[in-house]
C-alpha cells in the first residue's frame, strides 16, 4: 500500500535542491549583469522598492541638523552673517571679473567662429549614503532621472570635481568617485597645459597619473584641471594637486600621486552638471566613410552607463 506523508510533514523540496536553484539563479543574474548589462530594468524597479528605506535612513541626520539649527544662538548667527557678507563681497567681485572675462571669451570665440559654449545646467543634490562595497568608491545622491540627472554627468562640490554619475535611477543616482580604481578623468596641468589622464588609486583616497614619461614636465604642487577633450567634463574644473612624484631611472614612466582638490570622500552637498550637448562627434573608423558623411551632423554615440569617459 502506498503511503504519502501527512501534509504537516511536507516541507517542500530538499534544502540542497533549493540551494542549487537559488545559487544558479544568482549566478545567472551575475553573468547577465557583469557581461551583458541586461538587468538595468530589474534594477530600476527594485530600487523604487528600496527607496523608502533609504530615505528613512538619512532622516536622523537631517532631523539632528534641524534641531541643532533651531538652538543655534543669535550671536553665532550674527558672526556667521558678518563672515558670509565679507565672503559675498569677495565673491561678487570675482564674479564681476568672471562675467567680463566670459563676455570677452564669447566675443573672441565668435570671432574665430568656434561654437559658443552653452551655459551649464547644474542640479544641487545631497549625498544620501556611501555604497557598502569595499571594492569600489561610490555614493548615492538624492536626485535621479526625474530631476534631469543622466548617466555620465560630472558631479562637483564647491572645490572641484568629485566624480561622475554612473547609474541614474528615477529618484536616486549612483556616483562613482574619482578615487575609484575604475574611474578615469582627462586632466591638464594648469601651469603648462600638459595633458594626462588621472586614475583613482583606490583605498588611499588619492589619484594617480599613469603613463607619464619620467621626464615629463610636471612638479610638486602643480594644479590639475579637467581638459574637456572627452566631452563629458566641461574644461577648467579643478581636479587635483600633484602631491608626490617618483622618477625612477630604470622605469620609463614616472609615478605621480595627486591629492584631489574636492572633498571626494567627505561633504554632503554636491552639484550635478548637465553634459555639454554641443560636443564633437566621435571619429569614424574608416577614411572612406568619413568622406561620405562629411558635412552631415552626426548624433553622438550612446555611451555605456558604466564606461569611463
Amino acid at each position, binding site marked *: 500500500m502506498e503511503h504519502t506523508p501527512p501534509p504537516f510533514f511536507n516541507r517542500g523540496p530538499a*534544502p540542497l535542491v533549493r540551494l542549487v536553484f537559488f545559487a544558479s539563479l544568482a549566478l545567472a543574474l551575475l553573468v547577465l549583469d557583469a557581461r551583458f548589462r541586461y538587468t538595468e530594468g530589474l534594477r530600476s524597479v527594485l530600487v523604487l522598492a528600496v527607496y523608502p528605506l533609504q530615505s528613512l535612513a538619512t532622516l536622523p541626520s537631517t532631523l539632528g541638523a534641524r534641531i541643532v539649527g533651531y538652538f543655534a544662538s543669535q550671536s553665532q548667527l550674527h558672526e556667521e552673517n558678518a563672515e558670509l557678507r565679507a565672503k559675498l563681497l569677495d565673491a561678487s567681485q570675482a564674479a564681476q571679473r568672471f562675467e567680463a572675462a566670459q563676455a570677452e571669451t564669447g566675443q573672441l570665440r565668435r570671432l574665430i567662429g568656434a561654437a559658443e559654449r552653452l551655459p551649464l545646467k547644474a542640479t544641487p543634490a545631497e549625498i544620501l549614503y556611501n555604497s557598502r562595497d569595499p571594492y569600489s568608491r561610490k555614493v548615492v545622491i538624492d536626485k535621479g532621472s526625474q530631476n534631469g540627472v543622466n548617466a555620465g554627468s560630472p558631479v562637483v562640490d564647491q572645490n572641484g570635481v568629485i566624480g561622475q554619475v554612473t547609474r541614474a535611477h528615477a529618484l536616486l543616482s549612483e556616483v562613482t568617485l574619482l578615487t575609484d580604481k575604475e574611474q578615469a578623468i582627462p586632466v591638464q596641468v594648469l601651469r603648462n597645459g600638459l595633458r594626462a589622464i588621472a586614475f583613482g588609486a583606490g583605498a588611499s583616497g588619492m589619484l594617480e597619473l599613469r603613463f607619464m614619461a619620467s621626464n615629463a614636465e610636471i612638479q610638486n604642487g602643480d594644479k590639475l584641471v579637467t581638459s574637456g577633450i572627452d566631452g563629458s567634463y566641461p574644461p577648467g574644473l579643478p581636479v587635483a594637486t600633484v602631491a608626490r612624484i617618483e622618477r625612477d631611472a630604470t622605469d620609463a614612466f614616472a609615478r605621480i600621486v595627486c591629492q584631489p582638490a574636492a572633498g571626494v570622500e567627505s561633504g554632503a552637498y554636491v552639484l550635478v552638471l548637465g553634459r555639454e550637448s554641443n560636443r564633437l562627434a566621435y571619429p569614424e573608423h574608416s577614411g572612406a566613410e568619413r568622406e561620405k558623411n562629411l558635412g552631415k551632423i552626426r548624433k553622438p554615440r550612446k555611451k555605456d552607463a558604466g564606461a569611463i569617459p
Partner: protein
Amino acid sequence: MPVPFPNSPSAQSILLPARPGTILGSLAVALLLGFLPWQNIALVPDFVALVLTFWCVRQPRLVGLGAGWLLGLITDVGNGVLLGQHALTYSLLAFAASTLSRHMLWFPLWGQALHVAALLLFAQGVATLVRMAAGADFPGWSITIGPLFGAALWPLVSVLLLLPQRRPVDVDENRAI
C-alpha cells in the same frame, strides 16, 4: 538525561512562537542600518547577514534560502553592486545557517557567536571570490573586521530579537511540570 549546557537560553524557558511581523520588521531595520551614512564602511558589520543568520538558526522553517536570496537582491540594488552578488552570498549563508541550526542551539551564546563568526567570514569570502572573478582587486584583510564585529554583536542581537517571544516569568510551586 541531563541537559549538557544548562546555561543555554533554549534550555531555560519555553518561548512563544515567532510572529512573521517581528521577523519582517527586524529584517527591515537591518536593511535600514546598512543604509545609514557610516563613516568607515570596513568596520561596520553586515547587519542584514547577521539578522538573516539569526532567523535561519532560530526559525529555519520560516526563514530560509528564498528570504536570503530576496534580501540579497535588495542589498545589491541598494548598494549599486553587481546584481546577484549578495543574492548568492546570502543564499549560501542561509543554507549553512539552517543546516547548523540544531547543532548551534545547544551552545551558550558565546559558543553560538563563534559559529556565527565562521558563517559571516564564509559569506564575506564568497562575496570576495565573486568580486575577484568579476575583475576587482583584493581589498585587503580589513574586510574580515566587519564579520568579526558582527559575531561579537550576536549575543546582543539574540537577546533583543528573542524579547518579543519571551513570556512573563510565572513561578508556580505546585505545577506538575
